[in-house]
C-alpha cells in the first residue's frame, strides 16, 4: 500500500459506513430511473402501437357522408404529390398497454388496397391466409397477436364481447411476422356490420410528413378531420405533460431528501474522523490537502452510488422488460437516456452538499484543538 491516504482506501476499508450511503444513492437512482422509464414507456407504447400511422394520413368526413367527394377533390389540391388514396371502413377493438386498454383499428380494406398496404407497411411474411371477401375474418401482426394472446382461429371481435364487438365472430385467419402493429379485414364485411356508415380515406403521399403538415393546416376548421402521426404524438405529449410535471416535483423532493440525508451522514462521519484529520494536519498535511482528500472520497462515494443505481436500473428494467413487458408486447426501454438524465441531479446535489459540508468543516479546522482533546 504505497498511498494509504488515497480516497478509495477509506471507502473500501469502511464498508459498514460507505456501503449504506452507496446503497441509498443507488436505490434512489433506481427509483428515479424506474419511475421515469415507466412513464416514458407510455409515449413509447403509443409510438409503437400506432407506428403504422407514419405511413399515411387519415381523412374523416365529420358527420356527413355526402362531403366525401368534395373531400377527395380538396385532397387533390395538395402541393405534395399523393401516391394513393384508399377508401376504408373501420371497426374498433382494444389492445392492452401499460396504461390499460387502448383503442385500435381494424381496417376494412379492398383486396387491392390491402395488397398495397402490405407492401407499403412491410408487414412481413404471412402465416395463414388473407381474409375472404365479405367474411368475418381478420389478419393481424405478430405484436398484436402477442399482446392479445391470439393465434390463428381465435376470435378478434365477437358479439359476446362488448368492448370488441362485431355482430359475427371475426376470427384471425392470418398473422404477419413483421414488427408493426396492424390489423385489417375485408372492406365489405366491415362496411356492412360496423358503424359509422361512412367511408374514411387514407392518403399515402410521396413525402408523408410534408403532406401531413399541409393537410392539417388546409382542413383546419373544415368538415373533415385529419389524423396524422405527428398529431397523435403531440396529443400524447400534451396528455402526459401534467404527469411529467408532477413527476419532476416528486423527483425533486426525492433529491432533496436523499441530499439532506447523505449530507448529514457525511457530516457525522467527518465528525467521527476529526482525530484523523487533526493528526494528519499536525504531522504536516495542509488543510487544503485534507479537504481535497475528503472531497475526492465524497465524489468517489457518490459516483459509486450512481453507477450502482444505473446498473441496478438497467438490470431491474431489463428483467421487467423480459419477464413482464415483452410477453405482453408492452414497451419499456431499460437504457432510457431521458431516465438516466433525470437521475443526474441526485448525485450532483449530493456531491454539492457533501463538498459544502467538507468546506465548512475544514474552514476553521485547528489540529491542536483535536490533539489536545485526547480522544481516540
Amino acid at each position, binding site marked *: 500500500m*504505497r498511498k494509504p491516504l488515497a480516497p478509495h482506501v477509506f471507502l473500501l476499508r469502511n464498508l459498514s459506513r460507505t456501503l449504506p450511503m452507496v446503497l441509498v444513492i443507488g436505490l434512489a437512482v433506481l427509483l428515479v430511473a424506474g419511475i421515469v422509464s415507466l412513464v416514458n414507456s407510455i409515449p413509447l407504447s403509443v409510438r409503437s402501437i400506432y407506428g403504422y400511422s407514419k405511413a399515411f394520413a387519415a381523412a374523416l368526413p365529420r358527420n356527413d357522408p355526402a362531403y366525401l367527394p368534395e373531400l377527395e377533390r380538396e385532397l387533390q389540391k395538395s402541393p405534395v404529390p399523393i401516391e394513393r388514396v384508399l377508401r376504408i371502413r373501420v371497426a374498433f377493438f382494444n389492445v392492452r398497454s401499460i396504461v390499460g386498454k387502448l383503442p385500435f383499428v381494424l381496417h376494412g380494406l379492398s383486396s387491392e388496397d390491402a395488397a398495397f398496404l402490405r407492401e407499403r407497411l412491410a408487414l412481413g411474411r404471412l402465416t395463414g391466409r388473407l381474409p375472404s371477401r365479405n367474411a368475418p375474418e381478420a389478419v393481424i401482426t405478430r405484436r398484436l397477436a402477442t399482446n392479445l394472446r391470439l393465434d390463428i382461429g381465435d376470435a378478434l371481435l365477437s358479439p359476446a364481447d362488448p368492448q370488441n364487438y362485431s355482430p359475427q365472430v371475426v376470427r384471425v385467419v392470418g398473422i404477419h411476422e413483421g414488427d408493426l402493429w396492424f390489423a385489417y379485414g375485408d372492406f365489405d364485411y366491415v362496411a356492412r356490420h360496423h358503424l359509422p356508415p361512412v367511408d374514411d380515406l387514407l392518403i399515402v403521399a410521396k413525402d408523408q410528413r410534408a403532406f401531413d403538415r399541409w393537410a392539417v393546416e388546409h382542413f383546419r376548421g373544415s368538415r373533415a378531420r385529419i389524423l396524422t402521426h405527428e398529431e397523435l404524438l403531440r396529443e400524447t405529449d400534451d396528455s402526459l405533460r401534467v404527469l411529467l410535471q408532477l413527476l419532476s416535483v416528486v423527483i425533486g423532493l426525492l433529491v432533496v431528501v436523499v441530499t439532506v440525508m447523505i449530507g448529514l451522514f457525511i457530516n457525522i462521519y467527518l465528525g467521527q474522523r476529526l482525530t484523523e484529520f487533526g493528526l494528519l494536519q499536525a504531522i504536516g498535511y495542509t488543510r487544503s490537502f485534507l479537504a481535497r482528500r475528503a472531497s475526492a472520497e465524497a465524489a468517489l462515494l457518490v459516483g459509486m452510488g450512481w453507477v450502482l443505481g444505473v446498473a441496478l436500473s438497467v438490470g431491474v428494467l431489463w428483467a421487467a422488460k423480459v419477464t413482464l413487458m415483452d410477453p405482453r408486447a408492452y414497451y419499456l426501454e431499460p437504457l432510457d437516456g431521458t431516465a438516466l438524465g433525470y437521475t443526474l441531479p441526485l448525485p450532483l446535489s449530493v456531491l454539492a452538499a457533501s463538498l459544502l459540508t467538507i468546506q465548512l468543516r475544514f474552514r476553521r479546522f485547528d489540529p491542536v484543538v483535536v490533539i489536545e482533546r485526547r480522544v481516540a
Partner: protein
Amino acid sequence: MIVASDVSLVYNDHGREVFACREVNLTISGKEFIGVLGPSGSGKSSLLYLLSGLKDPTDGAVRYRGVEFQACDDRRRAAIRRKEFGFVFQYPYLIGFLSALENVLTGWANGAEGVERAADLLERLGLGEKMHRRPDELSGGERQRVCIARALLNGPKALFADEPTASLDPKTGEEVVRLLAEHRTGALILVTHDRRILSGADRVLRMEDGRVFDD
C-alpha cells in the same frame, strides 16, 4: 536551529487573559535532547506547539533556520512539519483503518522508497511481526512505537514528543523514551511531568505558569 524570542501565548478565558507561555526565550540546536518538565497546566504542551509552528505566539517570534513561522503560509508551514519535524503525542493517535505499516507511511514525504524504510523502522522498534496489524490489534505501547516510527520516518531535524509516556505503564514508558532518544536523527524536545524519564536529557527546562526556567 529553532529560536524562540520573547514568545508569549495568551488565551482569552471568558474575558480573562491566561498566559500559556510568558516571554519565553529558547534556542534548540543540533541533536540536543531537551526535557520540558512541569505540572499540568504549566504551559508545556503550548510551548511545544509554538516551537513546532502548530500555534502562533501572541507576542514574540519563533524561527526555524532563520525563517519566522508567522511569515510562512499554511503550505510552507505544513511542509516544514512534514519534512523536517516529527511528532509523538500523549495519546498514540493512529488511523484505525490502516495497518501499522500504512500508519507509519502517512508520515512519509520523500519519494518512493518509503515502504522499505517504514518496514525497517518498525523492525528496529520490535514490531516487524505486527506491521500489518491494525491499531486495535496492538497494545498501547506498540501503538506508541508505531507513532515513533511515523515520527522518525523522514529523519527529522527536530522530534517533538508531548507526554509520550502518559498513557503507558512505567516500564513501557521508559522503553518509549529510550527508543526516542536512541533513534532520533536530530533534536528531541520531550514534554513530561515525570522527571524520571528525563535522565538522558542534555537539558531540562522547568515550566511554571507559562515561564521557562533552567532546571
